[in-house]
Every structure is written in C-alpha cells, then in structure tokens.
C-alpha cells in the first residue's frame, strides 16, 4: 500500500515557492491521513535504487524527523507514536532500511544508517529489535566494502543514540571487535577504515570493561595510534578525535601510552594539516581539563579528595610541551581578529598554553619568559603578537607573587604598544593582555595589586584613547576597562576611578554611537564596561551615575519610537534595547543600594516604568528578559510604592508566565514575582489569583522546560510569605502539587550529575515553598489548616535524608523547614517531629558541619523543635 511520493518529495525541494509550499502541504496531509502508509512509503522510497537521490534523501530525512526531536516532550511523544504503530509496519520499514545498505549510492546508505540509529534509540531500551546488532554484525564479513562501510557507520550512530546500559557486554565486545578490526591498517578500503574510526569515537563510552582489560586496551590504543599515521587525512583527524575522547573518558588508563602520544601529537602539531594539528592540540587541552578538575577536587575544602588520582601528565611533559605550543603561536593568520568565529593553530595553541598555566601554575613562567623576551621587539608583527599572546595566556594560574614583578616591568611596555604599535593584531592582543592583567592581578582578592593610584591614571588615558581605534582593538580596550573597574567594586569611597567617572562615561557613550559599533561586538562591549563602572560607583560618584539615567532613557525612548524598520534594522534595534534595559537594570540596582541616592533615583521611577512597559511591546526574547530583570530591580528598590504600577504591568507579568517557548523569560518572570512579593508584601494580594492560576498551570504542563519548575515552587513560598494566611485558599491546589513533586524527587534515582543537580534544585524549591507557607501562617488563627500536611513534609525530609544525596543548599532548606514546622505548628507537631529520624540525626550531624550557614540552620531547627517539644 505504498504511496507514490517521489514527485511530491522532489517538488518539496523546488526553487519555486508555490510548488514547494504545495508539496509540503501534501506531505503533511498524507501524514495526517495515514501515518503508517506515509512512513512505509518513505522507507520504500529510500530503499529504492531506481529513485532519484534527492527524493531518497528527503524521504530519509522526513523519516528521521518523524522519530526524533530536540525538545524533550516532543521527543517522547514521537517515540511513543512509533512504539504504538503495528508490528508489521515497523518490521517492513526496518527491513527496507537494512536493505538500503546494499545501495551503491553512499548518501542513501548514510541516511538509512541515521534512521536505523533513531529506531534503535527508541526500541532497544524497550527490549525490542534485539536482533538488530546481530544482523548488523553479520554484515561485517560481507565482501562488498560499501555494505561494510554502511554497517560500521550505523554501529557508530547506534552507539551515539543508545545508552551503554541497554547493550549487554557480550554484544559490546562484538561491536568493538568489529569496529577495531575495521580500523586496522590491514583494512584496505579507506572508506571502511574511516567509518570504523568514526564508529569507535561513538563506541568508546561502551568500552568501560574493555579498557580495564590490559590486553584489550593495549590493542585498541595501538590501532588508534596507528590510524593517526594513515595516509588519509580524514582518518588521521578521526583517529585524533578518538584520542581526545579517550583522554577525557579514560584519563586514568593513559599512563603507559603518554610517551607515544606525545611523539605522535607533537609531530602532528608541527607537520600535519590544520584539522589534524588542531585535534592534536585539543588532546593536550583535554588532559589539562582533566587535571584541573582533579586538582580542584584536591584543593576543595569539603571533600579534599578525588575519585581519580592526578597523574601529573602535563607537569611531566612540560619541558617539551611548552616549546611545542609556543611554536604554534607564530602561525597566526592575517585578519584572524576580525573574524569572531575564527579558530586556527595559533589560537588553539594559546588556548592550550593558558590551560597548561592553570594546571601547573608557577612552573610555566620560566619556560615562557625567554620566548617573550626574544620576540616582543621583533620587527615582524608575528613575533610581537605571539610574545604578547604567550604572556597574556599564562596570567591565570601562576601566583600573583610570581607574576607581579614581571607585570610591573611589562606594564609600561604594554601601554606603549597599545598606543603606538603599527600592527592591529599586536594592539588587539596587547589590549586583551592588559585586561587579563587587571582580571587576575588587581582587585580586593589580590594582596598587592599591580595597579596603583599613580599608574591608574596613565592606564585609563591609554585605554580611553584606544577606544577610538579600529573596532576590534576598541572592543578589547572596553574589555580591559571592564576588568579594571571590576577590581574596584568593593573599594568603597577611595576608588582611584572616582576622578575619571565623567570622562569614562563620555567615552563609552561615544563608542556606543560609533558608526562601526556593530563590528567586533564593540557596542555590547562598551555597554558591558559601562555597567561595570556603574557597579563600582559609590556615594561620591552616584551623582554622576544619576546623570546617566536621562541619557540612557532618551536612547531607549528613541528605539521605542523608531518605526518602519527593515528586518535587519529591527534586529539591531532589539540588540540595542536589550543593552539599554540591561544598563538600566544595573543602574537601578546600584542606585537603590546606595542610601543617599535612592530618593533622588526614585524621581525617575515613573518615567523608567513607562519606557519599560513600551519595551514589552517588542516581541524579542532577549529584550523581554532584560526588561523583566530591570523591573524586578525597580520593584525591589521601590518597595510598596511599586503597587501603583501593577495595574499596567500585570498583563506583561502574566504574558511572561505564559511564555513556555522562550522558557528563559518564563523563569525570569517567576523570579520577578518573588521580587514583587518582597516589595509589595500583602499589596500583591489582588493579583495572586491570576499569578497562582498561571503558576499551577505551568507546573502541570509537560511542555514547560523543566528548569522553570523549581523556581515556581520557591515562588509559592515567596507568595505565601507575602500574603500570610490569605494563602489558605491556594493550599488545596498547591499542597497536592508539592506533595507529588516531593514524592517524585525524594525517590529520584539520579543517573548522572546533571540529573542529580536538577533533583536537588527541585527539592530545594519544594522546601522553600514549605518554609514560606509555614512562616506565612505563623501566629495566624488558621495555622491548624497546615497540621494535616506536617506528616508528609517530615516524611519527605526523612526520605531524602535516608537517600543521602542532598546537596548543601537542600540540607540547609530542609533544616529550615524542620524548624519552621516546629515554630509555626508548635505542640501540634511535637510528637510527630520527635519520631522523625531527620529531626534528630540530620540536625545533630549538621551541628558539626564546616559550613557556618548549615550549622546555623541546624541550630535554629534544634531550638525551634526544642521549644515545640517542651512547650
């Protein structure tokens, strides 16, 4: 019952829009009328060697999209839909797909491989299609190389789609054997060898057991290393990609191979083509990542150890590794600084050098200094740029004590180079290096800052002057100013920037108005610097910041009024609005926090609010988010006075809460509800029905991104704390939701760190909700309404405590809730609390915790419970 779809598929790729739309419409109709027939037709089209490749490829693509989607809920829906198709249809589609392997057309084979992997991704976890891997492996011994190649490619995709736990070890062994054999130098077809190498990349995650077996690991490593020497550049690149993946997945197994790998990589970095050389550098960057993580664990205050020991590979390779990386720095490309997405050997080498510096610290300095000294004054710009780049790269890692003397000598040289070097690359890297100096060797955290009252003025003069330079240099100068200002954020009234505030603002505003401000991200950088300077303002400079408000408002006003824009102009205007709202947000936060400027600032509140409401007319996600954040800041600063804006603002608040698509906005809006609760307190009451309805809807939706749900629970707590016993009418809706979420999250088994983190965020949200509700009802005659829920709350905490996967934040919140239960419900829950395991053991455990906040929460809980039990 296959339908004839060839012509429709071809029409769907027509250059004529009308033909294309019509064909797309037809495809949609067929799919809606009879899904099985539609999918069958597509698979038949893909398998049919008599059809044109264009229709076959599109058939495969549509088939693939009918099986998988990016959004989680859609992905689940599609999987469910596939599983519910009748068996005969599914079997026939799968047969067609496997048949496609024998096609001489490589695009058809490759498309079929991807579709098979998607089907496997759905079926294998449900123990369906158990014969797939067996039948694929039986293909391996086919004589026809293109079948072999397609099979290996499919195995790779299947490994990418499927969780390793779904495949048993015996099948893993057979997959790996087939793949590694395909990679072997004895394999004569380079197509097969490439497909096998790429398949290994995906299969590495399945090889845990095999990597613990010395013989098998030796074999895999030998084949991978041999593949790096292939005459085919694609195979060499794929083999180095495998090495990179092995370096992070099996770091602790690498010791016996490091000498060989060093030789292979250093030869590739020096001699091979760029894509291969980049992967060879990436290997070392990846080793640095691993060792930085492990050493961080060693240093961490609370655990003091790491699951994996550090083998100090970087430290051992240092004397040879650093010269190799320094050589790469001289391989710059012309105009690389104008291209934001650029990535080449010199950039990868500098990035790796920076990671090496973070891994080994002081030891790198003497190895890099001779290179800098030799090249910093070379007539060829490449030497000067490479020397500066090397210097900038190693500023994060070594101790300030080691670097400060060098920086003190270098600073004047750098300032001179930024003003006078004839080459833009050199100036770009010099400005960036100055930014790095300010970032790592200046500020309250650094004992002796390299910036003094005296050189600060000179630095500012040079930086402000450079903001008139070409866009990429000006952008780096703005970035340097950002870090210079950041160092003074905690400085109070003695900031050396104080006398220059006016000049700085003037220059940054000038930069934002440059004709070429959209190049090299210059305008964004200028606003970011502006924000940072505002953040480090103080009593003395607040009046100058205040003068900035009408200027920023005027600019925002102009963007709101602008009409009849082309889509390109609209994009730029949206960017600008976002930047201006961001700037207002920072100003509001700062002026609201300086007691002396708060009153003066509030005179602008009406106008700012008016503008922000107009900005909401824009449909751009970034702008909404920024405007919402600005409103949150304004609400906090205005306090109860914000109530007068609520009638107008409420519709946008509701709109934000309904924005499932751009879930970031939804999340930010939920946060702003919290700001409003704290600002308005019980004056938020008239809006609570609407807000609560929306929040409850959001929680029940499976379309809302899950990351928004924990903040929604916390927001329940904010609302309850603000409106107190008036929350009573929501209890009947909110409590069951909290209970079922609590149930789920208490028993959640977290397979990975990400899931664990999410589970803990959810738990924390739930606990914050309970705290807010309990505290909100305190001393109210309606307290009784909460008594029936107490047992469940305690059980929730007991279960989590039993599971032993609480992070510190959850622990602290749980202690708070224990105390709140006792504090609000008193003797009503005394006996219940006495019976709960967490109330005793958890609290005792936390009383001797290192973290003072946790200790304090434990003390509070103990006190409150003691009162409840004894009272």
């Amino acid at each position, binding site marked *: 019952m296959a339908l004839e779809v060839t012509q429709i598929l071809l029409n769907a790729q027509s250059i004529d829009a009308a033909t294309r739309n019509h064909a797309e419409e037809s495809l949609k109709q067929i799919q809606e009328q009879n899904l099985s027939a539609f999918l069958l037709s597509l698979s038949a089209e893909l398998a049919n060697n008599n059809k044109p490749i264009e229709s076959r490829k599109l058939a495969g693509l549509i088939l693939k999209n009918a099986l998988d989607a990016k959004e989680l809920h859609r992905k689940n829906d599609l999987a469910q839909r596939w599983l519910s198709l009748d068996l005969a249809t599914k079997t026939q589609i799968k047969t067609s797909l496997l048949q496609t392997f024998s096609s001489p057309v490589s695009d058809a084979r490759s498309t079929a491989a991807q579709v098979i992997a998607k089907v496997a991704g759905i079926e294998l976890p449900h123990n369906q299609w158990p014969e797939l891997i067996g039948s694929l492996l039986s293909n391996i011994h086919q004589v026809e190389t293109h079948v072999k190649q397609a099979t290996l490619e499919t195995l790779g995709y299947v490994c990418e789609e499927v969780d390793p736990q779904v495949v048993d070890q015996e099948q893993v062994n057979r997959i790996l054997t087939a793949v590694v054999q395909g990679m072997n130098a004895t394999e004569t077809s380079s197509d097969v060898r490439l497909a096998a190498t790429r398949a290994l990349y995906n299969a590495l995650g399945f090889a845990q057991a095999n990597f613990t077996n010395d013989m098998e690991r030796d074999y895999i490593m030998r084949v991978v290393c041999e593949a790096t020497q292939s005459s085919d550049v694609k195979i060499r690149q794929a083999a180095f990609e495998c090495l990179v993946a092995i370096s992070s997945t099996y770091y602790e197994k690498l010791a016996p191979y490091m000498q060989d790998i060093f030789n292979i990589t250093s030869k590739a970095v020096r001699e091979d083509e760029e894509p291969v050389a980049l992967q060879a550098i990436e290997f070392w960057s990846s080793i640095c990542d691993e060792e930085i993580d492990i050493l961080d664990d060693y240093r961490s205050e609370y655990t003091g150890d790491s699951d994996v020991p550090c083998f100090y590979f970087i430290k051992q390779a240092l004397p040879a590794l650093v010269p190799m990386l320094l050589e790469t720095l001289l391989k710059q490309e012309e105009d690389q600084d104008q291209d934001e997405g650029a990535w080449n050997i010199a950039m990868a080498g500098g990035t790796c050098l920076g990671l090496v510096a973070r891994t080994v610290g002081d030891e790198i300095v003497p190895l890099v200094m001779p290179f800098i000294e030799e090249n910093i004054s070379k007539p060829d710009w490449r030497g000067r740029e490479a020397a500066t780049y090397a210097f900038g790269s190693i500023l994060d890692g070594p101790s300030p004590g080691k670097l400060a003397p060098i920086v003190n000598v270098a600073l004047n040289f750098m300032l001179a180079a930024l003003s006078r070097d004839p080459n833009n690359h050199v100036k770009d890297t010099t400005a960036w290096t100055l930014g790095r100096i300010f970032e790592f060797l200046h500020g309250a955290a650094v004992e002796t800052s390299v910036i003094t009252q005296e050189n600060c003025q000179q630095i500012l003069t040079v930086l402000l002057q450079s903001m008139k330079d070409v866009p990429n240099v000006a952008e780096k100068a703005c970035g340097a100013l950002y870090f210079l200002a950041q160092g003074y954020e905690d400085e109070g009234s003695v900031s050396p920037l104080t006398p220059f505030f006016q000049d700085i603002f003037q220059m940054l505003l000038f930069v934002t108005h440059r004709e070429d401000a959209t190049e090299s991200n210059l305008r964004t950088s200028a606003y970011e610097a502006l924000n940072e300077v505002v953040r480090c303002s103080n009593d003395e400079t607040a009046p100058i910041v205040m003068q900035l408000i009408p200027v920023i408002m005027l600019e925002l006003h102009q963007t709101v009024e602008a009409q009849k824009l082309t889509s390109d102009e609209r994009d730029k205007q949206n960017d600008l609005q976002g930047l201006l709202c961001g700037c207002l947000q920072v100003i509001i936060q700062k002026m609201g926090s300086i007691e002396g400027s708060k009153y003066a600032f509030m005179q602008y509140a009406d106008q700012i609010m008016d503008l922000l409401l107009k900005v909401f007319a824009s449909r751009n996600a970034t702008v909404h988010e920024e405007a919402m954040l600005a409103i949150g800041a304004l609400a906090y600063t205005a306090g109860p006075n914000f109530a007068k804006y609520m009638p107008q603002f409420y519709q946008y608040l509701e709109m934000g809460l309904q924005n499932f698509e751009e879930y970031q906005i939804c999340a930010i809006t939920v946060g702003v509800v919290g700001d409003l609760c704290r600002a308005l307190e019980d004056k938020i009451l008239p809006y609570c029905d609407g807000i609560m309805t929306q929040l409850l809807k959001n929680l029940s939706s499976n379309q809302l991104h899950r990351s928004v749900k924990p903040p929604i629970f916390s927001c329940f707590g904010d609302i309850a704390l603000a409106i107190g016993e008036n929350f009573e009418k929501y209890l009947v809706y909110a409590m069951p939701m909290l209970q079922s979420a609590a149930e789920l999250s208490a028993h959640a088994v977290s397979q990975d760190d990400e899931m664990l983190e999410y589970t803990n965020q959810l738990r924390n949200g739930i606990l914050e909700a309970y705290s807010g509700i309990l505290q909100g009802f305190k001393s109210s005659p309606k307290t009784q309404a909460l008594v029936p829920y107490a047992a469940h709350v305690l059980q929730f905490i007991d279960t989590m405590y039993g599971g032993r996967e609480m992070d510190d934040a959850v622990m602290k919140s749980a202690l708070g809730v224990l105390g709140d239960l006792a504090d609000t419900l008193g003797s009503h829950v005394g006996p219940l609390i006495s019976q709960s395991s967490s109330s005793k053991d958890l609290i005792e455990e936390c009383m001797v915790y290192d973290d003072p906040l946790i200790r304090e929460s434990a003390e509070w809980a103990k*006190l409150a419970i003691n009162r409840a039990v004894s009272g």
Partner: protein
Amino acid sequence: MAPPPDHRRPIKRAAISDQQRRREVALRLQADRRSDAQNRARQLASSVLSLGPEPATEPEVEPEQEMSEASGQLAGRSDLDPVRAARLRGPEVRKWFARQLLLPEWMVDVPPSLDRDWYVFPRPSGKRCFVVSSNGTTISRLRNGSILHRFPSNLPNGARTKDVSGPASSYSILDCIFHEPDETYYVIDMVCWRGYSLYDCTAEFRFFWLNSKLSETGASDPPSQYHRYRFNVVQIYECNLAGLQASYSGQVPYVKDGLLFFNKHAHYQAGNTPLALVWKDNVCSQYVLDTDSKGQIPSQQQVVLELQNDGNLTTSDDPPVALGSLSRDLIAQSGLRVGNLVRVAIKDERMRLVDGKLDLGELQLVGKTNHSRAFADTYSKVLFQHAARHAPLRIEDLVASIQSNSSMDNSQALDVEMEG
C-alpha cells in the same frame, strides 16, 4: 576557518557575557533576599519576649516623669525586641529591661525531687545584668535597666569586626553576673543566641546551648582591644549529693554568694519564679542577712515594699501580696506617693500566718528607698530573711532531702520490678 569545538572556549573570548552575569546577579540577589525574608520571619516570632500578663495594678513610676501615652503603650508591649526596646527613652527602656530578667525566689523549703529535677551552682557575687550584643556593640544593663557597660566583645555581633555568619542586626542576650574583683561576666543563663530566642526552651537545653555555643565565639578569651571583658560560664551541677557538695564547698574563681537552683524543665520566665531558687548560709555567702541603706545589718529585719493607693504595702510578686499598711496620716506626713518603695522595719518579729497569709504585724517606716531601686522585696525573700534570723533552712536539710529522695527512688524501682 573552522570554528572551535563546542566545548573549547578560545582564550581570547570572554568566559561569560555581562548579560549572563546580570542574570546570575539577579538570581543571586533573589535567593539572598528570599533567605533574608525567611530569616526575618523566623526571628520575628521567636524573639517575642514572653512577659506574661500585665500586673493588674500597674504601679506608676515617679509621677514627675510623666510619660506620653503612646510611649507608655510601647513600654508595655510584649513583642518588642531588645534592640528596638533600647531605642525607647530613658525611664521606659529601664522599665522594659527591668521586666526581662528571671528572678529566682528564695528557698524557704526544699522542693521535692531536688536531685532529679534540679541543677545547682554557686552563685557569683556581683551585679546581676542582661548583656545584649548586636550591631557591633555589647551593652550590659542592670536589673533596673540602667547601663553598666557599653563595650566591644567576642559575642556574636558584639564588636565591629567581620563576623562569619548571620546578619549584623541579629542579637544575643545573656543573663550574667558581673563580678568586680576579676572584671568578668559570669554567664548564668542564655536567653537569645544569634537572633534565636531560647525563652521557650527548658533550662536543661539552655545550659547545654550556653556551654556549647559560648565557647565557639571566643567570648571566654582574655580581654583584648575588641573584647573588653571576659565571659565565663559557671560550672553547673546535677543537684545530687556530689553536685550539692561541690557547689557548697568547692573552690570557684569568684566570690560565692549562695547557691542557685534551676528546675531542669522550666522555661526562661521573666519575673519571679519558684522554678529557680536561691539559698544561702554563712558558709557560702558573706551576705546572708540584708543590710540597710548604710550597709549595716539592722537589729530588726527590714523589708522594702511598695505603697499602693489603698495604703497597703505590697511585695513585688505577681500578683502583689499585701504585708501590711500605712495609715493615711503617716503617708501624708511623710510625703509618700502611690508606687513609692518604702523601707519598713518589722517591730514585732513574731511573724504569724493568718489564713495562710503572712502577717508582719506592726510596721515601722524607716524611709523611702533610693531611685535606682526598681522593685520591692518578694514574699519569699521576706520569709527567707525572717527564717535566716530565726530558724534557717540549713545545708543539712538540703542533704537530707536529697538522701530521702534517693531512697524513695529505690523503693519505686522495686515496685516496678514487682509489678513486672
């Protein structure tokens, strides 16, 4: 040029955008403010100082210091915290603080199960005071509310140094005796710690808390620039024979003034309470018998009582107990006003109990007391002083009571076994 791999950030590219930073800052501020709001909610109710019902007849303080009505209400409010209370004006703040201390009754007979339900410790001789640390200073106030010292200390928020945790405004309140000879505050009770109230906690818990928390702060360190006076805890004993013996005759680093007994299960109750008791004899105190205003022990027992508008002289108990009266003529003659504290001598020391009430018989007016005195004597004090002059409760009586308790315990234990 190919772009860099997804997870590899080129070193020249910023780690996070300012937009991301704004987002993170906003989230952090929200979390901080939520936590502040929660802490405020938690402390508001738990810091309510339970004052109990107001006395039926509120004695007027010096009439010449007329209070405005509004502030009068303030002073009577029970939900004031000590920080806000300290902002009240002179006489009010004194009045407020004067009501916060737990005042032990005098032990006129031995309570049952002394060894099971009570603690005992030797009371340091000195000035009883309330010590409040908050916002970078420490203030000690005497029982009448007047300030004894204002100083920096290692108590939480007790000096302008960076504290590890908690808002600077959270306060701690200790019940202390300031011992002049070694300039040390001996802490006898903990009322509030880092903003969390211990009023409603049992003595058992408060003493446990006192012992574990105070040592964490360095408050017991020797005096230094940011810690003017040393705070020491007093060794507290279970009131068994050994504990009583140690308290009574053991060596302590301070001058002893009798023994204090605390019921383990009692909350901190402001005002007079029979759940804390003081007892003394000549061995453990230099001041068994009250002195008069000149510091001499008068030949006749003198008591300080408060003049009521019906001419009755009452104790400071709640409710007050009338122990005698003055004639209207005498009141008018001596220029006394209602609410004045007067010192009277008991002329006829044959005290009688009439209908379960003490009758002091004829009283002789000695004079008005000085201003700093805030309270009349309590009923139990009058009784104890009387007993001390005639038939004191002796240490042997206490020991005997404990011994009989423990033998009673044995018999009870036996009963239980037999039932089983």
